[in-house]
C-alpha cells in the first residue's frame, strides 16, 4: 500500500503540467463547439491568446497570435499591423518563452506525445542546428510571403496554409470529426493530404524528440525567443552564485546554451539540479519558485503556499466561469427562410430546393435581385477581401462570365464583415463581375452559410439550387456546374476540388490584370 502511495506521489502532475492543462482548457472553453461542430464567433476572439491555438478550433475562444500576425501582415498594404505586433510585444516582454513552457497547448500535446515509451533521441549538435530552422520559417513563411502578397492585396498566410500542424489538427480534424460537417469532406484534396502527412510526421517526431515542433519549427517560439533577455517573468540565474558547472544546461532537454536564453522555455527543471541553488523562477525581483522559498522560515513558506492556493482558487473560478459563459445554451436561430413553396418546391438552401430570393446593393450602383434573373442560370459566390481562396478564385468567375455571358448571371457577394475598402480593392483589378454586399449577413445565412468562405451556389433557370458548397472552385469545375445547371441536373456531388488537368482558358497562374491606377472603383449604392 505504502509502495503504491509512493508511486502515485511520484507520478502526480507537476504545477507546470497543471498550468499547461489549465491554459489548454481555458483557451478551448467553448466546449459545445465540439458538439455543434462550429467555431465560437463571439467578441472574445478579438483578443489574441498568448499560446499557439488555432482560432478555427471549435473550442477556441480567442485568436491565434500567429494566424493574426500573418493576416495583419497580409493586410499591411492598407493598414499597418500595429495591434498584433503590440500584443506580441506585450506577451513577449511579460512572459517571453515562459508561454511555451506553461501556456501553450501545443507544448502540452508534444510533452504528452513524448511520454510514449520509446527510445528517445537526445539533444546534440544536429538538434542545435535545427533549432535555427524556426527563424528561417518565421522570416519566410510568416513575414516575407504575406508581405509580398500584401502588395497585391492578396492575403496569403503561408505558414497556416503550408505548414501549421495545429490548424490541421485543431481546425480541420476538429471540424471534420463532427458528423455535422460531413459535407466538408468534399472540400478535401491535395492541400489536406499534404498537411495531414506533415501533421503525422511532426507527431512522430515529437514521440522520439522532446518538443520537436517547438524546438525546430514553431515561429511563435522564435518570436518570443527574441524577448529572452528582457522578459519580466522566467527562470533567472543569480550570477554571483553560479559556478558555471553546466549541470543546468546538461540537464535541459531544449537546445539551450545558457539558462534563460532564446531556446529556454523556462520549465524550471534546472532549478532542482543546480548544486549552488543559483536558479529560481522569478517575476522581476519576486521569487515565484526556487530554493529561496524552500530555505525560507516556516511562516514565510506558509504564506507562499497560501498565496499559491488562492491563485489556484481564483484561476479555477475563472475557468469555471468561462466554461459556463461559453457553453450557455443559445436560442436556436430562427430559420431565415420562410416556409414557402415556389413552383411546388420548398424554398431552402439544399440542392433541389427553390433558392430563397434576395436583393443586395451592387457596388457601382443599383441592386441585384435574384428573382429578376429567372430564365438564366445564376451563380452566387460569397467572398471577402480577407479570404485567400476567395480572392484566388474570383478570376475564374470573371473568366466564366466573359466566356458565357449569354448563358449565366454571376454575382460575387462580399461577406457582411468588411475589413477593407472593397471598392479600393476592386479598383485594383479589371473584373467585369458585378460585386455586391450582403449588408446584414442574411443572404449567406439563407443559403446555409455561416463561418466558412468561399461559398458558391448555382441556381438553374427555374430558380432551383443545383449546387451549394463551401470551398474553392476552379474554372473547369465552374463550367461543369454551369453545364449541369443548364441540363437541369443537380451537380452529382459537391466537389470543389482543384482539378488534375489544367484548363487552357483559365488563368490561375497569373495574377488578374490590374486596372490602370487612375481607374476608380464603383461606389456602393445604399
Amino acid at each position: 500500500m505504502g509502495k503504491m502511495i509512493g508511486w502515485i506521489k511520484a507520478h502526480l502532475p507537476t504545477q507546470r503540467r497543471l498550468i499547461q492543462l489549465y491554459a489548454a482548457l481555458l483557451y478551448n472553453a467553448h466546449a459545445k463547439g465540439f458538439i455543434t461542430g462550429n467555431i465560437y464567433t463571439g467578441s472574445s476572439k478579438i483578443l489574441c491568446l498568448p499560446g499557439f491555438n488555432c482560432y478555427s478550433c471549435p473550442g477556441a475562444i480567442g485568436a491565434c497570435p500567429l494566424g493574426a500576425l500573418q493576416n495583419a501582415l497580409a493586410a499591411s498594404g492598407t493598414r499597418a499591423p500595429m495591434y498584433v505586433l503590440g500584443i506580441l510585444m506585450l506577451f513577449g516582454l511579460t512572459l517571453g518563452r515562459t508561454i511555451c513552457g506553461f501556456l501553450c497547448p501545443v507544448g502540452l500535446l508534444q510533452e504528452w506525445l513524448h511520454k510514449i515509451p520509446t527510445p528517445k533521441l537526445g539533444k546534440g549538435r544536429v538538434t542545435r542546428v535545427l533549432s535555427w530552422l524556426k527563424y528561417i520559417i518565421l522570416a519566410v513563411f510568416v513575414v516575407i510571403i504575406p508581405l509580398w502578397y500584401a502588395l497585391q492585396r492578396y492575403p496569403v498566410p503561408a505558414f497556416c496554409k503550408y505548414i501549421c500542424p495545429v490548424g490541421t489538427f485543431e481546425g480541420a480534424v476538429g471540424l471534420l470529426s463532427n458528423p455535422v460537417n460531413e459535407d466538408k469532406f468534399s472540400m478535401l484534396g491535395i492541400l489536406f493530404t499534404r498537411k495531414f502527412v506533415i501533421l503525422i510526421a511532426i507527431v512522430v517526431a515529437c514521440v522520439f524528440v522532446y518538443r520537436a515542433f517547438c524546438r525546430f519549427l514553431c515561429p511563435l517560439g522564435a518570436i518570443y525567443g527574441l524577448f529572452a533577455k528582457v522578459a519580466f517573468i522566467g527562470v533567472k540565474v543569480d550570477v554571483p552564485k553560479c559556478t558555471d558547472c553546466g549541470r543546468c544546461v546538461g540537464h535541459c532537454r531544449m537546445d539551450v546554451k545558457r539558462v534563460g536564453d532564446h531556446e529556454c522555455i523556462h520549465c524550471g527543471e534546472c532549478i532542482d539540479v543546480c548544486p549552488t541553488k543559483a536558479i529560481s523562477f522569478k517575476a522581476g525581483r519576486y521569487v515565484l519558485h526556487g530554493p529561496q522559498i524552500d530555505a525560507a522560515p516556516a511562516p514565510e513558506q506558509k504564506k507562499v503556499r497560501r498565496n499559491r492556493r488562492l491563485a489556484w482558487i481564483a484561476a479555477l473560478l475563472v475557468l469555471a466561469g468561462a466554461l459556463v459563459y461559453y457553453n450557455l445554451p443559445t436560442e436556436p436561430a430562427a430559420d431565415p427562410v420562410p416556409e414557402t413553396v415556389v413552383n411546388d418546391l420548398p424554398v431552402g438552401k439544399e440542392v433541389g430546393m427553390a433558392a430563397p430570393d434576395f436583393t443586395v446593393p451592387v457596388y457601382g450602383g443599383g441592386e441585384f435581385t435574384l428573382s429578376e434573373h429567372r430564365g438564366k442560370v445564376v451563380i452566387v459566390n460569397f467572398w471577402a477581401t480577407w479570404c485567400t481562396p476567395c480572392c484566388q478564385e474570383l478570376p475564374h468567375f470573371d473568366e466564366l462570365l466573359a466566356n458565357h455571358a449569354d448563358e449565366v448571371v454571376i454575382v460575387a457577394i462580399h461577406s457582411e464583415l468588411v475589413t477593407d475598402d472593397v471598392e479600393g480593392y476592386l479598383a485594383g483589378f479589371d473584373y467585369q463581375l458585378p460585386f455586391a454586399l450582403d449588408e446584414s449577413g442574411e443572404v449567406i445565412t439563407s443559403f446555409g452559410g455561416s463561418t466558412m468562405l468561399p461559398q458558391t451556389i448555382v441556381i438553374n433557370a427555374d430558380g432551383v439550387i443545383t449546387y451549394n458548397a463551401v470551398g474553392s472552385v476552379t474554372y473547369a469545375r465552374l463550367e461543369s456546374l454551369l453545364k449541369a445547371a443548364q441540363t437541369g441536373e443537380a451537380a452529382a456531388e459537391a466537389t470543389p476540388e482543384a482539378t488534375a488537368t489544367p484548363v487552357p482558358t483559365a488563368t490561375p497562374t497569373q495574377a488578374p490584370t490590374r486596372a490602370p491606377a487612375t481607374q476608380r472603383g464603383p461606389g456602393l449604392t445604399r
Partner: protein
Amino acid sequence: MTRLLPWLRGATAVMTLLLALLLCWQCIDIYADGNAAENLDAGGVHIAPVYTREDVGARLMTLAIPAGVYALLIAATALVQSREPQQAEKAGMTAENRLRLMKRRVAELPAAAAHEEVLRRNIWIATAAVLTLCAAMAGLFLLNGSNFVSWDLEVVMGEMLRHVAPWAAVALLAVYVALRACDASFTRECEALKGQATVKPDPMQEKPFPADVLRADLYAAAIVFIVLGVMNGGLYDVLVKAINICTECIGLG
C-alpha cells in the same frame, strides 16, 4: 522485467512508425483513388468527391487492430517502465562547459590554449561569411518581388523551395560543421589546460545589461502599438479572421 523494457520500447517505436506510415498511406491512397482517371470527367473535374466521410471511416476501421495493438503495447511498456526504479538523469556536461570551468581556475593560458581560441574565432568568422553568402543568395530570390507575382501559390512555393531551401540547408550545415569543429577545439583546449597551475576562481560577474530600461521602453512601445492598432481597425481585423474559417488556412481546401 529490466531486460524486457528495451524490447518493449523498441517494439513501441516500431509500432509508432508503422501506424504513422499506415495513416499517411491511407490518406495518400484516398487522394490517389480520388484522382484516378475513372473519377475525372472530360474536363478533368472530379465526378465524385476525393474524400468522403464513409471512405475515411472505412479506412480508419482497417487501422483499428494495429491501433489497438499499439495502445496495448504503450500500456504494457508504461507499466513495466513504472515498476523500474527511476533513474536520476545524468547531468551531462559539454566540452564547452568543462572548458569554461577549467579556464576560470587557470592562472595563465598556455600557448596551445590561446591557439585554440584563435582557431575558434576564425571558425566563426568563416561560418559568418558562409551564412552571409547563404542569406544573400536566398535574399536575392526572397527580396525580388517579381518572384511573388503569380497567384498560383503551388508554383511559387515550388520555385521558392528550389531557390531558398538549398541555401538554408547549406547555412545549417555550415553551423553544424562549425559546432563540430569548435567542440573538437574545446576538447583539445581542455587537454592543453590539464595540469596547469590552478587558482581559486573569482565569483562570476553579471554582464551589465539595461534590461529594466529596455523593458520599460518596449512596454511603452507595445502599448502605443496596441492603441494605434485599435484606432486603425486592426482589432476588428483580428476578430473577423478569428470568427470565420479560412478553409485553405486549416488545410480543408
